[in-house]
């Protein structure tokens, strides 16, 4: 289902401005308030101490050296050393404390984000690419962490440094001090402007790299097609053309960096040059001592970093604010599918009886449409499943069969009508209760990078070893014992690759293990070869006998599992009956299930006799 443009807004409820969003993150910092204050105190103390050292230098030159006072020199030298050690110790303490505070904060935010995302409904996840969500959970959280651990602190200490140093410079020599400060101020403008321009280029480069990555991904997954057609030179040419775009942007970035970094060195150096000239003149007019001049120059150097970094720190803040906005955009999205709260938590053991009594399942004039899409997918579907009955749902691709299945465990809600489980509207059941009673296996068997056991006991983490084995046996998934580490073998993306048929059997085992009162299966035999299909359908027949089941079927072999067949066409149930009845009475069904009606000449049914 492609995302509908209008639908994306349905979940985005954020009206927060970036800065307001950033301010909201303070709740995650609250547990670390003491540490934060400590960090700030340490940072301010360290920069203030750093400023004292040039003043000691001045006294060394003007006091100790010019008067030949060795005792004073010793005292001043030792004082400088002690202060230097103190600065290092304070920096160490600040960093040590900050490390645990900000990693703790980042972890808490990531846990919350993950937990919240799991509760948002499937439609939300259809709209959002997982890459988008991932970048919020990684890049954006790092941006916030950087700002909390570094940006905020330096924003404050830089102001402190700036204030004290400027005051001292003016105190040492008022006109030289004012001049120095005014020459420095444009650097703030230059550095913020550089950051802005650099950011534009970086974003462009990221987009281009994204396009390149998409092509690389296609060429990697479509390697067989490229090889089969012998198109590697064409593919390489297309890749090179895209890589060149990245190259050009990256080189422009280097050019901008070159100008900026060279300029950043040049301006403070010019100030020093001016100071040398004007300071010397001031010294000759006895407005400034020689030691004062040296102190003046070293103090001026202390201003270089806070001023240069202004642009960078502001950018960090801006980045963190946008990141916070993006994170809260998700945390503020409300799950649209909720049930009443669970009254009594069922004990996990008791919740899974050996066999649950099959339930009745009723669809009552159910309608469903994707928001923003004109045509409704389901337009008044009514169906009744008796306890223990198996109903096969058939219809052309895109007729809404899969959509209908998803309504049962409430992965989506109908826009009109209701679904009743044992006579109760499923929306009146707490979600965990509903989903305990309904078991599903979807067509695309979703496996996770975990052991076979973990994947099978997905819906029943407390299942015993023998229960798992029984479920695997029922689903004809004995192949798992032949994997290198048996049930402990990791499967999924990060582990052993399984064939479509193998995946499907594991998904089936997973659904069986949960022992549901209603079983919902999406074409459970689709990826199996003829032999396995026979075995699995034999096993399935026994399982389906004891439970109410809704099964999507594309082929006669799957239909054969059912007691009753429903044909879904144009969003309504067009026909209902047994396979033979429908074959006889319903031309649309006949066309769907056999080769007749439209197949010209020699059809697939020729061999079938």
């Amino acid at each position, binding site marked *: 289902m492609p995302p509908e443009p209008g639908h994306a807004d349905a979940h985005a409820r954020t009206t927060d401005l970036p800065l307001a969003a950033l301010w909201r993150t303070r709740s995650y910092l609250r547990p670390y308030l003491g540490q934060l204050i400590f960090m700030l105190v340490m940072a301010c103390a360290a920069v203030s101490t750093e400023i004292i050292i040039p003043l000691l230098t001045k006294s*060394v030159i003007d006091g100790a050296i010019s008067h030949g006072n060795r005792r004073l*020199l010793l005292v001043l*030298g030792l004082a400088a*050393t002690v*202060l*230097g*050690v103190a600065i*290092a110790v304070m920096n160490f303490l600040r*960093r040590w404390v900050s490390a645990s505070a900000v990693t*703790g904060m980042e*972890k808490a935010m*990531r*846990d919350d984000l*993950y937990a919240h*995302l*799991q509760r948002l409904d499937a439609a939300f996840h259809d709209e959002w690419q*997982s890459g988008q969500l*991932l970048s919020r959970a*990684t890049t954006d959280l790092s941006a916030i962490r950087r700002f909390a651990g570094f940006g905020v602190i330096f924003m404050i200490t830089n102001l402190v440094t700036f204030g004290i140093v400027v005051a001292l410079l003016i105190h040492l020599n008022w006109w030289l001090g004012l001049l120095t400060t005014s020459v420095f101020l444009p650097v703030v403008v230059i550095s913020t402007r550089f950051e802005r321009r650099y950011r534009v280029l970086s974003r462009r480069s990221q987009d281009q790299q994204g396009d*390149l990555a*998409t092509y*690389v*991904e*296609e060429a990697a997954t479509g390697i067989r097609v490229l*090889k*089969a057609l*012998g198109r*590697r030179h*064409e593919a*390489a040419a297309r890749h090179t053309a895209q890589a*060149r775009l990245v*190259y050009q942007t990256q080189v422009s970035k*280097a050019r901008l*960096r*070159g100008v900026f970094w060279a300029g950043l*060195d*040049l301006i403070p150096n*010019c100030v020093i*040059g001016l100071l040398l000239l004007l300071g*010397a003149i001031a010294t000759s007019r006895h407005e400034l001592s*020689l030691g004062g001049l*040296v102190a003046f120059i070293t103090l001026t150097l202390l201003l270089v970093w806070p001023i240069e970094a202004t642009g960078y720190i502001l950018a960090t803040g801006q980045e963190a604010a946008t990141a916070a906005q993006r994170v809260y955009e998700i945390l503020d999205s409300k799950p649209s599918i909720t049930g009443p709260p669970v009254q009594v938590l069922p004990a996990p053991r008791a919740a899974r009886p050996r066999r649950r009594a099959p339930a009745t399942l009723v669809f009552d004039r159910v309608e469903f449409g994707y928001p923003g899409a004109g045509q409704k997918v389901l337009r008044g579907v009514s169906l009744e499943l008796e306890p223990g009955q198996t109903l096969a749902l058939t219809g*052309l691709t895109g007729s809404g069969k899969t959509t209908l299945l998803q309504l049962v465990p409430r992965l989506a809600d109908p826009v009109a009508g209701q679904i009743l489980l044992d006579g109760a509207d499923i929306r009146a059941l707490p979600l965990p209760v509903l989903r305990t009673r309904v078991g599903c296996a979807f067509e695309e068997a*979703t496996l996770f*990078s975990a*052991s076979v*056991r973990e994947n099978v006991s997905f819906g029943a983490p407390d299942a015993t070893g023998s229960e798992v084995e029984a479920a695997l046996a029922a689903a004809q998934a004995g192949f798992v014992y032949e994997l290198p580490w048996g049930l*402990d*073998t*990791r499967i999924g*993306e*990060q582990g052993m690759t399984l*064939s479509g048929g193998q995946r499907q059997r594991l998904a089936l085992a997973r659904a069986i293990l949960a022992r549901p009162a209603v079983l919902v299966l999406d074409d459970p035999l689709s990826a199996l*070869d003829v032999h396995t*299909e026979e075995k699995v359908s034999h096993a399935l027949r026994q399982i389906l006998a004891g439970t109410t089941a809704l099964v999507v079927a594309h082929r006669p*072999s799957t239909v*054969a599992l059912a007691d009753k067949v429903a044909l879904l066409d144009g969003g309504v149930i067009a026909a209902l009956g047994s396979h033979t009845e429908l074959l006889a009475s319903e031309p649309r069904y006949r066309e769907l299930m056999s080769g007749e009606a439209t*197949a010209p000449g*020699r059809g697939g049914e020729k*061999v079938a006799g």
Partner: protein
Amino acid sequence: MTATQSWRGIATEDIEVSGGLATLLRRRARRLLTGLLRPHRRAVIGIGVLVMLANLAALAGPWLVGVGIDAGIPPLIHGGDVVPLALIVAAFFAAISAQAVTTRAFIVLIGRLGEDVVLELRQRLFAHFQRLPVDFHERYTSGRVISRQVSDIDSISDLFEDGLDSLVSAVFSLLLVGIGMLLLDWPLALVVLAGFIPLILLTLWFRRESAIAYRHSREAIAQVIVAFVETFGGIRAVQAFRREHRNEEIFSGLNQRYADASLRSSRLLAVYSPAITLVGNIAVGAVLLYGGLRVMQGDIKVGVLATFLLYLERFFDPLQDLSQFYNTFQSAAAALEKISGVLEEPPAVAEPATGTPLPGDRGGGRDVRFDEVRFGYREEVVLPRLNLDIPAGQTVALVGETGAGKTTIARLLARFYDPVDGRVLLDGVDLRALTDAQLRREIVLITQEGFLFSGSVADNIGLGRPDASRADIEAAATAIGADPFITQMPGAYDAEVGKRGSRLSAGQRQLVSFARAFLAAPAVLVLDEATSLLDIPGERAVQAALRTIQAGRTALIIAHRLSTVAIADRVLVIDGGRIAEDGPPEQLLAGEGRFSDLHASWLETLA
């Protein structure tokens, strides 16, 4: 693997690389790097010269400040002579201008060099992956192919972008400042340089520890990402099976591991960086004490002391930078190692420089012959000994259970693999004697996934023959029966198919890939038939297309659905890599063999 992670299960990657192999890997990466830099020798030299000049100019500044104090100010105070000072200040401005110019040139040049190397590496890697055989891709998985070309290249690019200029500059700065101080006043310089001994020890410790910490945190974040992506990729299964609580436990555990790992890294920096400050600040104290004493004794002048104090700033700060960039450096080194491994992987299917010419095309396909072909993956034998003759123009269906060797036969014919023994012949010519271009003109394999690339429908069909005109493309689509659905799409042939063709149904994708093959017009067509993805009407459309496309050429079809067999002239039942039955479909059906059994059970499922 710890006990708390038993849910993850075991996989081959968990078994670690031994130490001996690790050093070999490093050597391989170095060789690749020197190979990449060789064509840029002049740029490298230029960068060396520029960074040297920039640093010399940067050193001249503080020195001139000192000279100004010692030689410029006294004449001004005593005689009102401003000339010496003016000259010194002029020299200072000259020095800082030179510094700015050379710094800028250095940064731009090193940036461009880096991008040249990255571009070259991207191209080499892409081309190499395209050349590597299919069984490599299957072993290596597309995920890793992608991450070599995306995240690993990114780490190398990051190194050039954020780290390398500072790194190179820092090394030069350390060297030159050291020499400069020694020239100015060697006893005072030795006091400063003594600080280097603890710094070296500290840096060695930091390097070792942070390499470990870095690896831990990379592994930890990788697991966090996998858990995250998989959860939300499979959110329907997660919610349907009430998996939320268990997932939160698992995720929180992974997240904690990552938090611990990054805490460890941050704490290493929390020790290392202040430790450098500590040494630097003690050096300042020592210079004030000892330098002040030497000034009093008349050994040096005040200006030299000032120069030293200014130099100290330049001496210890670069080390701080190095610690910041160490992680960037490590990940780039690790990335280069992995990339060099891929680049040394030999393309198993080598092609001859010039191909043996095939007999002229008679139309109607070419003869295919498997002559005593033996094939296996590692120790497992798939085809023990296969002999098979397919006359030109015949359509052969392969049937048999999964794992019987059908796909292997198809892939040997498409030369995705080479036989271990024996030969595969096309009109009597060994496939290995043909160039890739020749081979792909004659034999085309269509896989069941019907893979489409993002772009328009026309682009995707045109992949069959890059020089085809729009009319050719439309004609191919019409012949296959794909034209009706294409013209119904908004934009028709220019309609975007979406990522991996997601805007088309499975049946439509299959038709597009047939049109592609039709356009390529090979003499031999190899087809791995689609199974589950199609509903019956979709399958009918595909089968009709199949009849069109096989006409006038030799065709080998892996039949999953027995209905496909109907269009074949000949059926081969494959069992354990051997041909168990061979004959026209009617004949096999009438017999008592496997095919008639298979067919009977298939009929049963249809009932």
